[in-house]
């Protein structure tokens, strides 16, 4: 078994009202920042998966991302592979 580290980035789908993104945009004036638009606020989840190989680990992450970490009606997700890691590091990270 090898440990693989992943990140799952979840964002509201295009067209879905994102009041958090709008609130961030609304605050830009207070920072005297101009030229920033289309702010979308999502969430990032990082996790370690123990699996025989990277493909098996990626399959687990995909299921987790689509069934739990995102709601397919309103959110999309993208998985980033952060690479293999030793299980000792993974245990500490937990």
């Amino acid at each position: 078994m090898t440990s693989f580290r992943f990140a799952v980035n979840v964002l509201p789908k295009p067209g879905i009202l994102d009041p958090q993104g709008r609130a961030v945009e609304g605050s830009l004036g207070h920072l005297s920042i101009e030229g920033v638009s289309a702010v979308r606020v999502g969430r990032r989840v990082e996790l370690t998966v123990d699996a025989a190989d990277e493909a098996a680990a990626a399959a687990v992450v995909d299921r987790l991302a689509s069934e739990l970490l995102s709601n397919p009606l309103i959110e999309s997700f993208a998985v980033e592979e952060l690479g293999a890691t030793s299980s000792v590091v993974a245990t500490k990270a937990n």
Partner: protein
Amino acid sequence: MGVRIGVVVFPGSNCDRDTVRAIELAGADPVVLWHEQATLDGVSAVVLPGGFAYGDYLRAGVIARFSPVMRAVTAFANEGGLVLGICNGFQVLAEAHLVPGALLRNASLRFAGQQVRIAAERADTRFTHGLEVGRPLRMPVAHGEGCYFADEATLDDLERDGGVIFRYVDADGRPAGPDDPANPNGSLRAIAGVVNAAGNVAGLMPHPERATEAILGSDDGAGIVRALVESAARAANGRAAVGAR
């Protein structure tokens, strides 16, 4: 002895006691169901009450969806059993895909704790019979994620098939637009409650159980609890009839 109606308690539920009392007032016997149990103790209907199940971490309702009791509730619903979700319970049902749509963060970004008016769209469902269509009913809302969302095609299907059972309305009973203060969360088409296609699973964001006695400021919610109790009694008396609308 009245019909037995289950009230699920998740860690973080906070309307379970109100729901228990509302069910008692309607003449039924509430049965408290703990989130870790995998059976429903033979109840004739289940209510998922309001609160913040599992802290509403990740998304409201999603962690609760995978609890042991929700496996039992899902099986019960798939066999035609009556399930009503109120507020957080509605969010759990939506996350479990037992009712269509999703509940987004309120358009205002503010927690909505206020009195609202809703009106029944139809009185021929197991959750609304006995109600007067279009009559404004006063009751509270208390939620941060209650903005009803579904894509346009789903909304059109819902409207056509009678899936919308409650809408936010103004004092005259007119549906509230998305920016109308009478719509507390920006819900699309002012949808406050929906029922699934089979007619046995429904959810709504407002709290009928908090408006069941005059001393609470309104007893307009009592009719909704009564409809559930009567439908549960009918289901208990004729198991064969379960599944019919």
